[in-house]
């Protein structure tokens, strides 16, 4: 995987997620009623209780939708053009969809493709997930 933009791992809503990525684990928020949700928000979108913890979900999923990007405003990604960004449906209960860069040949991309997560250390101590065919 080529360069990926470095996130701010101290952002209060996402710090725990990035801490999980550093250990190569995918964590999602959990509320007191055990609802998992994505993306991370302070409050559960189903029951409006404050999210209080994080749960690891499997680093596997299938490709729900995608785009192949041929032009980008993000300079860091220009050398990677064209590249695939997917909407990956993770096998959690209920299924959660997460946006992720996919290391797939644009010619081979198709709905339902099985994917596994991998992590790219973009800076010492900061890892960003991306996805590969299973």
């Amino acid at each position, binding site marked *: 995987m080529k360069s990926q933009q470095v996130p701010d791992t101290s952002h209060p809503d*996402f710090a725990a997620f990035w801490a999980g990525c550093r250990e190569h684990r995918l964590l999602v928020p959990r509320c007191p009623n055990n609802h998992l949700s994505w993306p991370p928000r302070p409050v559960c979108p189903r029951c409006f209780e404050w999210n209080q913890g994080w749960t690891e979900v499997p680093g596997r999923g299938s490709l729900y939708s995608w785009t192949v990007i041929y032009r980008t*405003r993000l300079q860091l990604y220009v050398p*990677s053009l064209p590249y695939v960004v997917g909407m990956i449906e993770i096998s959690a209960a209920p299924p959660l969809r997460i946006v992720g860069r996919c290391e797939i040949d644009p010619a081979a991309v198709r709905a339902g493709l099985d994917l596994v997560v991998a992590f790219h250390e973009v800076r010492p101590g900061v890892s960003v997930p991306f996805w590969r065919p299973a």
Partner: protein
Amino acid sequence: MTGIAGVGQTQYGRRSGRSLQSLVAEASRSAIADAGLRPAQIDGVIPVGGYIYVEDVLAGAGLPLQVADALPAPGGNAAVDSLRLGCALIGSGQAANVLIVLAKNGSSASRIDDRIKLLPGQQFRTQLEWPQGWSAPVEWYAMICRRHMVDFGTTKDQLADVSLAAYSFAQQNPRAMQHGRPLTRAAYHAAPMIADPYQLYDCCQETDGAAAIVLSAGPSGGDGTRFVELLAVAAGRPQSPDELSNRSDWYDIGLSHAAPFAYEQAGVGPADMDGAMIYDCFTFEVLHQLEVAGFCEKGKGGPFAASGAIGPGGSLPVNTHGGLLAEGHMTGMNHLAEAVRQLRGEAGPVQIEGARHIAVTGWGDWGDGSMAILRSPRS
């Protein structure tokens, strides 16, 4: 009887060479004059789009300083939603004649990169999406479109039908940025890829210019034959309104909620519409909104466009000015202006014969949406 009394527009192009204040003044004065009003009679102002504020409008249009005002959220929902805010100013007695105006140097100055920084949910954009290389509306909406292709078999050729209809109408409209540049199906398919499945001609223009309307509590003079009644306006938001990944219905958008409400308020339905001005930031968004607004069945937007229904002479002509795709990106203000021309019978070569009702939609950032239903003074 609230309605649109006047419309005004500048030229549209890539390099206006003018300030926003100059563009605002021209469109505003033009709309006020078209309404048969004097600037002193304007008592409400709504600046649209996030580029200008009330103070940028007042002096140039020669308005009183003590106007009521409201500020819609930026994004493509703002034009139609301004009608809703204008109705609130009029209905509460704060104003009788509301100037709604948008101006931008969207091509030569504040391009899309700047505008998306104004939208909600920035923490998701910068922290979760940019690190995945996903950063622009064309890339966000391509994701919705691609799944529609998987679920319903929508094709690139059906997206082409949307673009070809817009370019066809634009050839009849000297104001359109793509006037004099007809599009062929072969050229559509041969164009550069932007974010698959979107190619160049699936994307709207970037435009310099201004457009304004006057929303009034009633016709102020004359016989009222140019006063276009606003039967209903409604706005809505989808589930998860600041990002789109986990909606329980992937196709849920603001219009899914606004359209039924607008039809109920107006006492008419989709079958009563003689034409539609659909917010066409990209081609698939037209198909998506045609479905959600009830003009065709869910999943059938592609075949509906391919049938010729939305083009010249079709059963539901869509964006007879050329839309954002081919006239220019006036954030949907140009859709309202075109609806008014159609309902007054002033649409020239693209006039929809006997047009009585037209629906106008808005679509912004993560799919917040709106619908206005306008009625002809001739009906």
